[in-house]
């Protein structure tokens, strides 16, 4: 008697607990083994880039909050820098420091969420995620303190930031910075050498160096594959050249390396934050910018190192109040490029680990 087996198609998503929003993967499976993958997105598409063309420059800042909503501050910074580039205006010293502090806090917050969700995806039943959110909560409290918001901050403005730091902010920040390394080490002890985490992530979902570069991957995904590329060092913007920090890179480009890179990046962000908190000068928090923003005709592509990689804003100005064209280079979307190659041959369970390790936010994938 001979048995005949067939491939079958299964949809992971759009409403799947592990697709980090509304992502859909059409898998062709042979038993549990992935034979083919077709990623389908667009379920969260809001036409943001088109919307931006009908709104003036200032009113577009809140749109950027809703891209990578786990790292709104960095999106704010990227967009503001792009428009400042068009306007050719300087940002006061203090505002630069505030921006760096916000961006690095946000990076830690985003990585905490990223690692937490990754561990949740490999079945750790919420525990690590909730621990990660304990620290994220403290960071969110700080953001709440400066701008009264907890998710979509809308804090930065062209030429500076909307409000100065409240008096209680810096002491609270310094207290948090003293606590954070301890917590990060705690996670390290609990997770990094956990036998199950190791067998689930080591050697799983390898993104080779060449493929990472060829697919324009960025951020921890690129660095996990061993490419030492970080805009904060390689194309320094704002005042990043004043701080000492290292760029962690992985060796094998596997899921585990991407996790390790994120873990180390949090430590490096703490380093930057400590220096920034110590050096921050008194002074203006907002430059001299007119109320109505009307950049001269021209175009710019300005990129910052987002929590997930190179976050770029390409804007064409035609001299009017609205941008003529507004485009976002969203790292989450581009990091997904190699997903198919990374998944084929692995099992359904590995899909969650690999997908979780790319760490995407759907708000950024579907704009």
């Amino acid at each position, binding site marked *: 008697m001979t048995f005949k087996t067939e491939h*079958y198609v*299964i949809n992971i998503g759009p409403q*799947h*607990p*592990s697709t980090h929003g509304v992502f859909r993967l059409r898998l062709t499976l042979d*038993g*549990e*083994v992935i034979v083919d993958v077709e990623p389908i997105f667009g379920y969260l598409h809001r036409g943001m880039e088109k919307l931006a063309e009908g709104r003036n420059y200032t009113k577009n800042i809140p749109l950027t909050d809703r891209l990578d909503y786990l790292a709104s501050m960095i999106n704010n910074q990227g967009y503001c820098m792009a428009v400042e580039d068009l306007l050719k205006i300087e940002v006061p010293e203090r505002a630069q420091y505030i921006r760096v502090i916000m961006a690095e806090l946000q990076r830690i917050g985003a990585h905490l969420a990223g690692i937490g969700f990754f*561990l*949740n*995806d*490999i*079945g*750790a*039943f*919420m*525990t690590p995620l*909730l*621990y990660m959110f*304990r620290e994220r909560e403290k960071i969110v409290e700080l953001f709440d303190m400066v701008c009264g918001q907890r998710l979509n901050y809308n804090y930065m403005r062209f030429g500076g930031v909307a409000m100065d730091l409240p008096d209680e902010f810096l002491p609270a920040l310094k207290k948090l910075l003293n606590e954070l390394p301890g917590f990060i080490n705690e996670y390290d002890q609990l997770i990094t050498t*956990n036998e*199950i*985490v*190791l*067998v*689930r992530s*080591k*050697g*799983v979902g390898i993104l080779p160096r060449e493929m990472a570069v060829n697919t324009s991957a960025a951020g921890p995904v690129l660095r996990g594959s061993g490419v030492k590329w970080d805009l904060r060092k390689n194309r320094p913007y704002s005042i990043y050249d004043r701080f000492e920090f290292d760029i962690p890179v992985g060796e094998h480009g*596997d899921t585990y390396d991407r996790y390790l890179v994120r873990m180390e990046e949090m430590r490096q962000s703490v380093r930057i934050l400590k220096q920034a908190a110590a050096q921050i000068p008194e002074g203006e928090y907002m430059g001299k910018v007119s109320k109505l923003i009307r950049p001269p005709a021209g175009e710019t592509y300005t990129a910052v190192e987002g929590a997930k990689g190179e976050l770029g804003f390409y804007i064409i100005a035609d001299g009017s109040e609205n941008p003529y064209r507004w485009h976002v280079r969203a790292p989450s979307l581009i990091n997904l490029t190699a997903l198919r190659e990374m998944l084929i*041959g*692995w*099992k*359904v*369970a*590995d*899909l*969650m680990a690999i997908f979780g390790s790319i760490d995407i936010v759907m708000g950024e994938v579907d704009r």
Partner: protein
Amino acid sequence: MDWGHFLIFTVILFGFVISGVLFFIWYERRGLGRFQLRPGPNRAGPFGLLQPIADAVKVLLKEDLVPALADKPVHFLAPLVAFVPAMAVFAVIPFGDGALLADLNIGILYIMAVSSMIVIGIFMAGWSSSNKYSLLGAMRTIAQEVSYEIPLVLSILGAVMLAGSLSLNDIVKAQDVPFILLQPLGFLIYMTAAMAEINRTPFDLLEADSEIIAGFQTEYSGMKFGLFYLTEYAETLSVSAIASTLFLGGWAGPAFLPGFAWLILKIIAVFSLILWVRATFPRLRIDQVMAFCWKFLLPLALLNLLLTAVLVLTGLNDQLWLAIPLNLALAVVLIIGLSRQYKTGGGHAVN
């Protein structure tokens, strides 16, 4: 057959299982809350004690949906097929000397035979749902649960050898010291295999919420889902009860508490261990789970059986002062030695 004894004990057991399950649900949710830095249910009743009742009411009131393409009779029967054996296991668990529903001289054999029936219920549920997540869950069920049955039985045999009986009542009476001291390895293997049998982290691949939504029970709602939920906790209760009976001395304990209280305390202790594991570990992959069973647990269980046989035959196990350290040392050596040899095979592409 004494019908009065049968009737009264059935009612008591039913009450015990249902209230035990309700307690476990509350205890687990509160416990997980503590592990996860959150309060857990604390609104319904004092300390959230009424939460399981509220859950039960909610489950009863929910609409019972059946997929259009489901195999309806099988879909309907599956929760029952799973639930009844989970209850029936308790017939042979002694709550005191002779205080059990049926003192079978083949008690252990009965437990193994009955509890393995649950797999059929779960497979029926997964297969009949006509849902591919359920199908994957069902395929995993057969692979995993059937495999883990083997180290599970082998680990129990150590205790059976020491007691020289298959009756649970006799096994409890044979424990001058709890068998965990003479069978540390057996206990560990039993707990690991049992956690795989009852579908608990890190072996919860049948439902694997982050992978296949809820696996075999994806298409179940209302009371049918409730029955699966009950089954899962009744199984956990039975696993804890069997572990307490076989390895922790069952109802035996200092006289200031009655026998059944000792048993219940031991059950809660074992359940706490299971809960702790659930709150801590991520999930393995199905091939890793299978490799772990066949390449690690099974050889370990066989070695344990062999060594126990040698110790029993040579009479060494009766010399407690020697047997306890010897057994502990053997357990440590075997676990470390075998884990050096063993590879999960994780981390390699499967093609």
